């Protein structure tokens, strides 16, 4: 009987150790927390926490921004359930040099649907509206910046940097928005389609 007790307790001990290892490994392999609170600003500089949202296509974090590399740079966010359109605002500066490359042409795709095309040169805010049918009741939002002419500074004769740079991203914010084109088909919708 005593022997049986000893065996039982050692078995329990082993099980506890195994469970601890299992939980530890789960914690180690757990995906980074990419939950996003609407209206919060993601800072892509050294003081921000954009790493938890960034997928492939990003360079290292610099003091105030992060370069998005060509041909595409991805962001993955888990957003709250929402039945309104979502508005995206990104502060971007394009890799450009006059006259060879006056601006970067950037397509913003949300869950594989292109929602805006921007011409990015000097640093400014760009906005887009993601229609609710693109989200389709999903909570995961995959944003992709697609560059048609990402170029290295070396190729433009600026410096020795060989990275294919698209845009420098300073900050990003997602808010509830209005699908303005649904309300005002013309001519306001045309202004929105052109971006800022």
């Amino acid at each position, binding site marked *: 009987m005593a022997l049986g007790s000893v065996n039982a307790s050692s078995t329990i001990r082993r099980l506890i150790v195994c469970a601890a290892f299992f939980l530890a490994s789960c914690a180690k392999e757990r995906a980074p927390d990419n939950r996003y609170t609407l209206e919060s600003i993601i800072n892509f500089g050294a003081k921000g926490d954009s790493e938890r949202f960034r997928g492939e296509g990003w360079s290292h974090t610099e003091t105030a921004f992060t370069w998005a590399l060509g041909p595409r740079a991805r962001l993955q966010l888990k957003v709250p359930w929402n039945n309104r359109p979502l508005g995206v605002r990104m502060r971007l500066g394009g890799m450009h040099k006059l006259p060879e490359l006056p601006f970067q042409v950037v397509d913003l795709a949300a869950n594989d649907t292109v929602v805006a095309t921007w011409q990015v040169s000097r640093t400014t805010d760009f906005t887009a509206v993601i229609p609710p049918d693109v989200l389709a009741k999903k909570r995961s939002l995959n944003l992709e910046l697609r560059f048609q002419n990402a170029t290295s500074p070396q190729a433009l004769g600026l410096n020795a940097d060989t990275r294919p740079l698209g845009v420098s991203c300073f900050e990003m914010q997602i808010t509830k928005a209005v699908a303005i084109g649904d*309300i*005002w088909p013309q001519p306001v919708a045309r202004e929105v389609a052109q971006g800022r």
Partner: protein
Amino acid sequence: MAPRSAGARKNTSCTSGCYMASGRFHFHSLTARILTESRAARTIVANQMSASVRRFGSNCLSPMHDSPTTTEIPSPAAESAPDPHNRSGRARLTGFGRSWMVRDVLLPFLATRLMLSFVGWLALLSFQNLPANPGSWELKPSGEIAVATPYLSTTSYPLLNIYSRWDGGWYHSIAKNGYRFVPGKQSNTAFFPLYPMLMRVVHTIIPSDTDAGWVLAGCIVSNCALFIALCYLLLLLRIDLDHETAARAVLYLLVFPTAFFFSAVYSESVFLATTVAAFYYARTGKWWIAGALAGAATLSRSPGILLGAPLLLEYLLQRRFQWREIRPDILSLGIIPASLAAHMLYLRWSVGDLMAIQDAQAAWGAEWGTFSSPWTPVIRFAREPFMFNDVMNFAFAGAMLVLVILAVLRLRPSYGLYAITGFWFITSWSTFESMPRYVLVIFPAFVILAKWGRNPMFDRAYVVLASGLAAVFMMRFALWRWVA
């Protein structure tokens, strides 16, 4: 007559006593209360008839009102009766002069609207460097709508712009261009027609063909409707409550955190005006007017269709659930479904889809229909990342649930039924997203608050807290940030 009155008196006493003593809700007490309420309502109608008889002579005396009515038992809801000298119902309703309209409605109305406008304008000035929300629009100096870029304008029609955000655009588009439906997309057919129709009517007298003229028309309609709603609310509550409590309910409604929607290009004020007026005319026995106003409420917002149930209950209360006393005026309640049917037929004719309302609502992810719906957002709230608005939505839903339950237990059954059906309706769309705005029109909740407001501590706390939140919400709305 006498034995019945005595019985009623005994019954009332028992009901109130049991209710107060146990602090619990009993079905038999509700039944007794309904019967007593029906007698009280009949008293008011009969008193009005008596007043008419005195005024116009006895030729119009109906056999139904032949018997004296002064022996009726007052309603338990008739706390601190406004007139102890047994004046007629009409005298009770209008005999307190016209000064109430200025003192208890117009002044609070103007004061709160001026404060909200000032706060909204101040927000525009204070946050000039805040990037405009994506997709946001505003009135430009030309008076036309255009994308707000890169910042919101502080000088271009600021007092109109701060009231024409978010869904204001949908009403504006209906008034200006009519209905437009794109299957699978958010369309303006999700919105009801009365408010844009009134905008069109008012716009005819505005000498401006620009978008600014349309927004101005919307603001005029909203504020006029709000003023009318407040007048009728005070008149309605005066039937059962003392004047101070009724006036306090008006004030509490005006300082409610989301009360700025009443002045914005939104249909809440029109809905409230038609709903409260419908209840008022129902209480005073003018059923055809009540039915027409309830039909108008149905044409202003979707919850209007639910008015049929509380008004029917009110009708039956006044007839003491006696089938023989039902008159052809009960048909007036048929105007409510008829209004909805007419609007649906109009949509069938104009956009080719009889169910365009529902189809457009589906594009908002609003799924009507199951009893599990109210739990869906609760579960989502517990599981998913949330934001400031979610916390506010749940806070408002929780507070309103408490007030609705109290309204059911403590107010006239028809008011309670309106509160409970209204609350059920707005929580059955799989989301609490616009809860702080939707609860604005559940007026019985403000009656409960006004009763609590007899306590000076509560009164001060409510006014300070609600006004503070109203200022914050107004600022967010003016800056194109989501509120409700």
